[in-house]
């Protein structure tokens, strides 16, 4: 079995681990680092449940080889919590808007929302829908999720 040392920063903390070269980044984050917010959904890059931020951009970690994470900065939902476990604004918005039901798609959506929010831009409704289109939700429909992201965007921009 071929293995490789992967050095990367996960949720602000520098880490190293030796991974099987056949592992996806989902495998590494869940098994080596116990970051179980990264869900295994379709495992073919369609549902977005495994979405994480790599160097500030969203990637489906199921179709990203773990070895490629070497030297990268990775962020998962676990990295959003405050020092005493406080929720971030976008997580709270998902609760307030009823955007969570079974919760399986939620971490992926939150990370895409984070990329949207951190751009500091104000998007139109159509742009937001397109930016959120890489995720599947089978419970709530998308309206509440869309509202949560839109309201947080407007709040951050001081427009709500």
């Amino acid at each position: 079995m071929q293995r490789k040392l992967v050095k990367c920063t996960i949720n602000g903390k520098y880490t190293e681990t030796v991974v099987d070269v056949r592992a996806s980044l989902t495998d590494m984050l869940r098994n080596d680092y116990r970051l179980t917010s990264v869900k295994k959904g379709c495992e073919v890059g369609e549902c977005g449940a495994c979405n994480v931020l790599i160097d500030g951009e969203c990637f489906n970690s199921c179709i990203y080889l773990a070895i490629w994470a070497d030297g990268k900065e990775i962020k998962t939902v676990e990295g959003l919590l405050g020092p005493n476990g406080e929720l971030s604004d976008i997580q709270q918005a998902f609760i307030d808007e009823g955007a969570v039901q079974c919760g399986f798609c939620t971490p992926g959506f939150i990370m895409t929302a984070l990329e949207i929010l951190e751009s500091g831009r104000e998007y139109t409704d159509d742009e937001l829908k397109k930016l959120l289109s890489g995720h599947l939700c089978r419970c709530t429909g998308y309206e509440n999720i869309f509202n949560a992201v839109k309201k947080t965007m407007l709040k951050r921009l001081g427009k709500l």
Partner: protein
Amino acid sequence: MYDIKALYEAESVENAVQLLTEHPEAVIIAGGSDVLIKMREGKLAGCELVSIYGLDELRGVTMEEDGTIRIRPLTSFSHITKNPIIQKYINVLGEAVDMVGGPQIRNIGTIGGNTCNGVTSADSASTLHAYDAIMEITGPDGVRTVPIHDFYISAGKVDLKHGELLTSILIKKESYENYYGHYIKYAMRNAMDIATTGCSANVKLSDDKKTIVSARIAYGVAAPVPIRAKSAEEFLNGKEATAENIAVFAKKALDDVNPRTSWRASKELRLQLIEELSKRAMTEAVRLAGGEI
């Protein structure tokens, strides 16, 4: 875990050529959004991979001294769309690749992978055909170039010989200067879907914006590989930019294409789409070029 027999990580283009020569059965993996899915499906299960994903020298878009636009093959779709050179000179390419999959796929998928897998539905391929792109290939015998039209051999097969990899996509100044283009993707959904048929048209108008100096149009899923409608283009060249001429042009395009029936759509629907999309894409291209229709 993926069913990978062995994985070799290239450290440079030279090293990639060496690894591919040493491991003749190995498949190149760039972003992996095709290769890993095929592996999961079982089609590529148990194969050897040469990963070029780490080669930053194969990323980015630059302008050469003679005005040629050089697109490095590992540039992701989202970075093509955001690139200022693409936005200024071939905006239609950025728009076309912004219709691939969803946002996460556009961050991992590469324009090189989109062409090298030889798939007719690739959203970048029709626009690259319509702009006479030139593929720069590096292999054991050095660097060679081939026009994109000749690069596609048959469905799923491109002109990459043993030990070779795509190292640049080139678009010459005369191929893009004063051309304005428009791409239409017809699919069942607005995201995470593959084109039923795609159409990319571009046009150069005379100074008074009334005559079509040069028109080019290419399609995805109108034949086993992306294809140009050469006889239709010839008809339109030198004609007045009118709705009537474009309608005749769109009809003529049907003689140049060869779509088939697949589970996505019938041949008849695709023929209807080709005529309609040709008309709409060319009309929009003329409008973008400053013409009035």
